[in-house]
């Protein structure tokens, strides 16, 4: 039995790596991202469990039933209805569970928030971003090599209005665990509520041509009072 253990070690190591994936997402910084992180963790646990069972079965079979110079013909088993029904049923139950959990998070996160959110227009263009605070007309425009910094308050729902006049871009902030495309001819919206102060990097995630890699921006999340002071210091665009 001693030499069997040698075969199992890689499987255990792979499992450990899979579990380490849980710690590797950018730390969530919005109310919505916290829910996504929870859902991601659920999926990761399910995937790790399935990997453990299936990889374990494969590993056990190739070790236990490896040819050992005994060349007699194995029993030619080729069907077992009960077993087959079982292995159709188990993944079906798992998939239903994952769907229900996915639907719950999706419906909550995509629902329109009540009340008057802070409205920010996000315009993707080749190859930078233009952010406009719609209520105060303050506008920030980036140029490649000099990315804009969008300042937002913590604890206030922000409604991003996503538009583009040239090609498709995608507004992506890794720490918010979300992206949404800006598509010519389509008015897209994304609502979220930041719950952690800090500076978060973002960049275009939909390939948009030559300088796609330079469509960087950042978001600085500050307290509501700091935000009000910052906004008042900005000059509205004509």
């Amino acid at each position, binding site marked *: 039995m001693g030499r069997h253990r040698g075969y199992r070690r890689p499987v255990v190591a792979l499992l450990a790596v899979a579990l380490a994936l849980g710690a590797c997402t950018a730390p969530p910084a919005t109310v919505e991202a916290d829910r996504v992180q929870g859902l991601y963790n659920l999926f990761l646990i399910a995937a790790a469990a399935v990997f453990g069972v299936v990889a374990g079965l494969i590993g056990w079979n190739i070790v236990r039933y490896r040819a050992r110079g005994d060349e*007699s013909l194995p029993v030619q088993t*080729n069907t077992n209805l009960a*077993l087959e029904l079982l292995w159709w049923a188990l993944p079906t139950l798992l998939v239903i569970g994952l769907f229900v959990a*996915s639907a719950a998070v*999706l419906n909550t996160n995509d629902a329109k928030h009540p009340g008057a959110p802070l409205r920010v227009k996000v315009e993707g263009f080749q190859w930078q971003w233009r952010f406009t605070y719609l209520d105060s007309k303050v506008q920030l425009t980036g140029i490649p090599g000099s990315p804009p910094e969008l300042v937002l308050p913590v604890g206030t729902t922000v409604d991003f209005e996503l538009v583009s006049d040239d090609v498709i871009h995608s507004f992506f902030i890794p*720490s918010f665990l979300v992206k949404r495309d800006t*598509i010519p001819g389509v008015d897209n919206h994304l609502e979220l509520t930041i719950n952690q102060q800090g500076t978060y990097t973002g*960049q275009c995630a939909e390939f948009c041509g*030559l300088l796609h890699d330079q469509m960087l921006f950042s978001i600085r999340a500050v307290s509501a009072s700091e935000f009000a002071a910052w906004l008042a210091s900005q000059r509205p665009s004509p």
Partner: protein
Amino acid sequence: MTTAELERGTPRPAVAGTRTGIVDYLTTTDHKRIGLLYLFTGLGFFLLSGALSLVMRAELTFPDLQFLDESTYNQLFTMHGTGMIFFFASPVVFGLANYFIPLQIGAPDVAFPRLNALTYWLALAGGLIAFSGFLVGGAAAFGWTGYAPLSGAIFSPGNGSNLWIIGLAFAGTSGILGAINFVATIFSMRAPGMSMFRMPVFTWNMLVTSLLIMLTFPVLTGALAMLFIDRTLGGHFFDPAAGGSAILWQHLFWFFGHPEVYILILPFFGVVTEIIPVFSGKPVFGYRGFIFATMLIGVLSYSVWAHHMFATGVVSNLFFAITSLLIAIPTGVKFFNWIATMWRGRVRFQTPMLFCIGFLFMFLIGGLTGPFLASPAIDYDVTDTYFVVAHFHYVLFGGSVFAAFAALYFWLPKMTGRMLNEPLGVTHFWLTLAGMNLTFFPMHLLGLEGMPRRIADYPASHGDWTLLNVIITGGSAILAISVVVLAWNVIASVFMGRGAVAPDDPWGGYSLEWATSSPPPHHNFTSLPPIRSERPVFDARMTAIASRPVGGEPPVPTDPSADQEMVRG
């Protein structure tokens, strides 16, 4: 008899009894020669597209642009994806299908041999046309997905983009014609006794694949025609400013594109389902259930396309979430079939089986990251990042390419009459396994940390990104070495004639290709064994043993003992 016991002899021509000059290959309508042309064309584009990825990896090792500019980088990833999908994976599928569907069903050739030749030359022309963009001032640079309006004349001027469209249209047309040929062959040219439910699983999976091609490739060809009209004739299909729709392209492209993923994996499910039973000494477990799962994947694959579009915000995300998750069920079932096939068998670890076991582990990982992308809330985060790149490379490299290598070691002796070198094969396997995991596993982490795909450069301020990118580039170097080992094995064993002469049935095979010579004669068979199950060659071997006179020669490997219990379903 093992390969070591076979003495070396003079190489036989690729098709016994005929000449094998260049002109013979240029003018052939023989399915075996066309199959070989397809396979080596596919391997050629594999080397080319792989070389492009190595250049990209070298550039991405460290932040800042070292020796590429964005324009070149964008062409490289576009043509890497285009080449691997359309001009490597598809030709390898068509090559294996061309060679082995007629052999497995006991037919002398495909139904339409001349059409078959046209199909190959269209595919080759398509590849050359698409790649010729590099020679006319720049290849296409909008990603293999060609999203509108970026792929339009305003944002992607230049003939490289037009050549990409024309090349893909050639490949699409070739695919449709080839699929029609395979379906006609399977439905009308099976040998007496070869009922549908006695067909080998590879042929079954190619039937379902061909039906998928016939229903999806026309959509691609149509979309390409619309894009071409927009670009060159002033059309407005995908121009929102003139009342067109940018999203329309994505619907058409992915209605083709997602079934295409199954077109590139179902044949390889068939390959491993040929190899695992042979190297386990057992029949495939749950043959009919396995085929039903293949059909279900085929049907479901039409209903999942918009999971590529969750982040566009303009599709019904929940509908496409449930259909995409459902497809995990028949795929998962196949794993249990493969495992139960090995259960209580005699598993032999020769190179074809090593690659199948590698396939099981790697495709398992690729399969398990799929549900993350099928759940819209998680997909919003990880789509268009390196997480997706990791996912589809585990599926297409860990799945399709591993199975293609398994098929090469399994079937090249049949096709060329030469065995490949086993120690080199084992070396190739371990290098591929190590290189693949070092290259593609860290991409999961990169994606989760927010690195988008398709960027020529990344900021140095993300400390982890640099470390992970260094590891990935190192892994890709190991993959490059593994391909050199494979190429040397094929060149030395086959073309230089150093490999042992392949017997008719080197592995103890089950299906009809093992009942003829290696390589098979023109029109394939001089006689056929009776076909009474899905394993006619296995049955013939058992019959020969059972009718052996008492006190005859000692049993050969895989013989049953005298009182072996047989369970047949």
